[in-house]
């Protein structure tokens, strides 16, 4: 972990009643880094994203984004600091066209730098993810794959410094998956730091320089992806303990 990471999280804790969904998680993300966030179902990945993006109030811990304290901020203030996210199940604005969806993000998002022309800015991101042709469609008339790309275009149009991708590549066919991985590489090349939440190991190994593995809300392994996946605790978490 570097001295001054872009995103610095310490001791993040969030409990629902007696259940500690996220329990003292430390997470750092450097400039331009792509980090994988993995763990079995219910290990706290989505809760962690919801806490970091301000949707859920955290019970304890510190968050700093670019050195600015970001805990206990309203979500739109977190977005203004440059944190964007996609949703596991796409949540487009149903009555707005694909293009208008992205325009909303271009209008708001991070404070600096404001786009000079929101319309052009939105079209730029639509083209970036390959949705220019369906800009005038309503979200429920495009395919699930396209709706996931819309999630990406919308998040990118907020001009993020840190981007959380919540299973944006799940449920795609092999061809779409290859395109998706290439797309994430292109996003990283823009200088955006990315946290990839994903179950597909091929994606994780392809994309991520570092890995954070969660189980029962706690970090059980952190570091090089290959080493993490060989770690005993990780193997046990995914496959269960060997009874023999």
């Amino acid at each position, binding site marked *: 972990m570097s001295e001054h990471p872009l995103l610095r999280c310490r001791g993040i804790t969030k409990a629902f009643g007696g259940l500690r969904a996220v329990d003292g998680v430390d997470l750092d993300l450097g400039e331009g880094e792509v980090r994988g966030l993995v763990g079995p179902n219910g290990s706290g990945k989505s809760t962690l994203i919801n806490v970091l*993006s*301000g*949707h859920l109030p955290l019970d304890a811990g510190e968050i700093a984004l670019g050195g600015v304290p970001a805990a206990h901020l*309203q*979500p*739109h203030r977190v*977005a*203004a600091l440059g944190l*964007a*996210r996609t*949703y*596991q*199940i796409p*949540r487009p*604005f*149903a*009555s*707005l066209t694909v293009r*208008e969806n992205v*325009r*909303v*993000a271009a*209008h*708001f*998002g*991070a404070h600096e730098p404001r786009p*000079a*022309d*929101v*319309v052009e800015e939105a079209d730029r991101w639509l083209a970036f993810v390959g949705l220019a042709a369906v800009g005038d469609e309503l979200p429920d*008339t495009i*395919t*699930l794959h396209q709706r996931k790309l819309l999630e990406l275009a*919308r998040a990118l149009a*907020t001009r993020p410094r840190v981007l959380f991708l919540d*299973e944006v590549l*799940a*449920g*795609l*066919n092999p061809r779409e998956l290859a395109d998706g991985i290439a797309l994430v590489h292109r996003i990283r090349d823009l200088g955006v730091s990315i946290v990839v939440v994903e179950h597909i190991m091929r994606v994780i190994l392809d994309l991520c320089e570092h890995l954070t593995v969660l189980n029962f809300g706690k970090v059980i392994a952190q570091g090089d992806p290959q080493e993490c996946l060989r770690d005993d605790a990780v193997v046990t978490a995914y496959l269960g303990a060997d009874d023999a």
Partner: protein
Amino acid sequence: MTRRQLFPPRVALGFLAVVAVLLTIPTLQQRVGFPLYNLIFLYLVFFWITQATSWNILSGYSGYFSFGQAAFYGGGMYTTAILGGRHGWELLPTLPVAAVVGGTIAALTGLLVFRLRKLSGEIFALFTLAVALGIGALVNNWGVLDGGRGIPMGRLDYPAWLGDTTQMLYYLGLLLALVAVLVAYVIQHSRFGAGLFAIRDDEKVAEALGVPTFRYKMLVFILSGMLAATSGGLHAMQVGFISPDGAFGLRIPVFVILMSVVGGRRHWFGPLLGAVLIHTVTDRMAGAGYAEANQIVLAAVLIAATLFLRQGISGRLVERPVPPTVTFVVAFLLAFTVGGQTAIGSAAVAIGAALVVLFLPDRWLRSWRRGTDGDGPPAGADDAAGPAGDDEEPELDRAQEAGR
């Protein structure tokens, strides 16, 4: 820095032309001597446009469906009645005070529903209704405000250049309607409007994309309250005798909702259309002695609009503006000249005819268009997308299940 034009020349000219024509009507009425009732009728159209538009920038744009329009309308009305009718203020100074009262009621209500508790959907609607009824009960029972006796307006002073009472109501009503419509237009085409539309569809996602949802909801609520209250204050002059039942009853909220839903809630033009339509129908039914049957007609219009025009008349009109507009103009001229109808009667006939054309099934309009200018889509164009779309479905379901 390039900025998109807020008012393209076509739109600006359209606004100016309509306002210029409307401004000449009182003078024309005196010169040519057509019935004074036309002015009163138009004032009421302006009044309903203002009320419906004020409701729509809150409830249509942001999706927070309010039943509390009467809280603002009645609040403004009682402000002018108490200051003017009881304490002898001139009319014009009471209107800004009415706006402040309306804005304050909105701000306090907004703090309760948006900050203290996050209410939405039917609970928000019920809460706003309770606010209106609660203020009505307070006014009805508290002698300082009214106490149930009602307030006669008497004659309020206003600048002489505004003409007689009917002309003054006409000019000020037009001004307020213009302000309301311009506010709705500007919001719809601005960053503010983009934020409100996002809130309407998915408030959490809007917030995550950086929309300051609380501030925007408060702002639009206060704007809506100020417009409605100012219009209510002016309307006190038209009503003449102010009572708690009239000011805080259900008539105003029901009508503004009806007008906006029929006209279309996603467009600044919607409540305007709805107000013209509903008021003209109501007026003609009452004029013909069928005031009771009017409710049946309005119910039928509402049912038809909700079943067949999900985005209201404006949504359909934006898609195909020409046939209904042509029908309206032709029918109006025919009814006025050949049919010997009054101006308002002709308008009613023309609206009816235009509505019929608007409600015609798409198929008929398409064949009409192909028949006239030959640029209709080929017959198979709509079907071509079908099979490809069907193929995506199973995969989509699987993927969503996997996502959970």
